[in-house]
Structures are given as C-alpha cells and as structure tokens.
C-alpha cells in the first residue's frame, strides 16, 4: 500500500493520539510534585519517535520493559505499571 493511502487511513487517528499525549504532558506539567519512574520512562521514549529508521514500536516497548533476566524472589503484586521501576 502506498504512503498516501496509509496517510489517508491513519493520519486523523494518529493526530488525535498525538494531541492527547501532548495534553497529558501539559496536565502533568501543571500538577504538583516530581516525575516518578513511569513518567521518566515515558519521556525517554519520546526522542525515539523523531529518529529515522524502522521498528519504533518495538524500540519503545523495549525501553518500557524490565531489562533484568533472573526471576524475582516473589510476585509482590499481580498488576503491571507499564514501565520498569529500575529505569
């Protein structure tokens, strides 16, 4: 499929998500307190978007992933936060 067709199909949706992300960052900036590990991780991924080259989704997912290899001693919680606390 050519680029103009892909742009026709997905530009409006991507634009909407981009504005939502920008508004979220504005909301965070207006709030009190400091960034936690989730926000630090998320901000670090933003530079990946502007870089040329393939596999942007994969690279961002890896940046948000636990980089360790060994199993943890115990689960502690059942839920996931979306970013690695060790970032």
């Amino acid at each position, binding site marked *: *499929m050519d680029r103009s*067709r892909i742009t026709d*199909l*997905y530009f409006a*949706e991507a634009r909407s998500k981009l504005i939502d992300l920008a508004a979220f960052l504005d909301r965070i900036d207006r709030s009190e307190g400091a960034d936690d590990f989730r926000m630090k991780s998320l901000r670090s991924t933003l530079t990946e978007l502007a870089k040329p080259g393939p*596999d942007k*989704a*994969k690279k961002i*997912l*890896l940046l*948000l*992933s*636990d*980089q*360790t*290899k060994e*199993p*943890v*001693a*115990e*689960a*502690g*919680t*059942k*839920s*996931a*936060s*979306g*970013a*690695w606390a060790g970032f």
Partner: protein
Amino acid sequence: MRYIEPHAHMVSRVTDDYAAMVTAGCRAVCEPAFWAGFDRSSAQGFYDYFCQLAEYEPRRAAQFGLPHFSWLCLNPKEAENLALADEVLAMIPSFLDRPNVLGIGEIGLNKNSRNEVAIFEKHVDLAVRHGQMILVHTPHLEDKWKGTRLIVDILKQNRGVDPTRVIIDHVEEHTVDLALDAGFWAGITLYPQSKCTPSRAIDMVEIYGAQRLWLNCACDWGHSEPLAVPKTALEMKRRGHSEAAIDRLIYGNPLQFLSQNPKFRIDKIASEDKRDAAQK
C-alpha cells in the same frame, strides 16, 4: 465472514456477547482457564471452575449453536501458593478426557517470580506427560519481554515439548519474533488499551507473514472487546487485504493449530451440544 475465537473468557461475559459473536460469524470459541479477579481459597474452587469450563459453559454456548472448548490450569497469578497449586495440578488429569478440553492453558508467567516459574515448569511437565497441547500466557506491559524470554527458554529446555503444539499468546512487536523464531505459534491479543490494537496487529501480520499466527480477543471481566477479531478483519479489508488472506488468518490458522487435537471437531461438537442442551 467466518472466524474462530481461540481465546475468550466467556464465563465473565453476558449472553448477548454470544449472540453478537455468532452473528458476526464466530464458528467456535475456546476458553482457557483464567484468574477470577480474586484468589480462590481452595482446590475445591478450582474443581467447580473446571466443571464450569468442561460442562456448563459448553451448554450455554450451544444455545447459540456455538461449539465451546476449554483449556485447564492454575493461572500464574495464583502460583505463589505452592501447596494450593500442587493440589490443583493433581486434579487436572481427571478432566483431560472431557470432550471439550483441548489442553493445558493459559499457563505462563505474570510477575516473573520464582514460584511462577516453578509452577509453569510443572504445568509444562504435566502437559508433556499427558500428551497435551499448551497455551501460554505472557506477562503484561513491562514484564512481557523478560517473561517471554524466560518462557521460551523453559519450553526449549523440556525435550518433550513439540513447539508446533504450543501457542505463545499476547505477543507484541518486541516479543513476536521470540515465539516464531523458536518454532512456536504466536497469538496476538486485541485489547482497547493494553496488548495490541487492530492496526498494530495487522502491521505484525504484514511484517512477519501470517504463518503460525492467530488473533484473539481474550475478552474477560476487564476492558475488552468480544468482537475484536471480526472488527480487525474489517480493518484488514480496509487496508486492502484479500478475503482469502483474512479467512486464512482468522479461521484457517486457528483451525490448523487447534485441529492437532482430534477433539476439535466443530460440526460434531455443535450438534452433540445442541442435543444435550435440548435435553436439559
């Protein structure tokens, strides 16, 4: 359009979802054992759940002419209680000869803990000893990449595991190649927020090809969409994929994988369950 929903937690869904799925072209639904949203307090709770998956839910689905199959296990979210897990593992073989039980699943990891790894290894060993197929859950979000690598390593270390009879589910862009490169099947789960969107799922199909891939909705009691597979099919059509390519991905591929278990006979089961439902 016709499709097979290979991963849906229908005990958590309303009856209208069955009607909508069948209306959209669903020809069979498969339900792996899952976490209830709270920890069960005893092995008896699992016994009742397995009876629900093997007896009651197929009758509920049969009211809509929909064949229902299930997979059995203790979910990794409940693996920290090793004594309870061992009790449940000991109970599972007595259910494996039920006509709708396809194998062991969804086993795997959640937070990548030592106990989760131990119980996953025991489930894999159980599946191998009983010649069962395996459906694997991979962890959520930040835990997925690490967990998928641990899971693949454990499966590869067990010489009794045939990768062609194992599906590693919930893959995303950073894990799909880990599953496919090792010879396993890979499942892409379509969720409104976490896991994968329809457009990203189609991207992966275009990049990696459709071989050994299936799509599923994994609808449960959380944010999820029971019609995610047919809606993704419509998105594929919008993007220019042929009817044949779509049919292969959402019907042919799950049919190919699941038919490795001779119990997965769609037409036969549907007629038997319809008869049973009428007699109840």
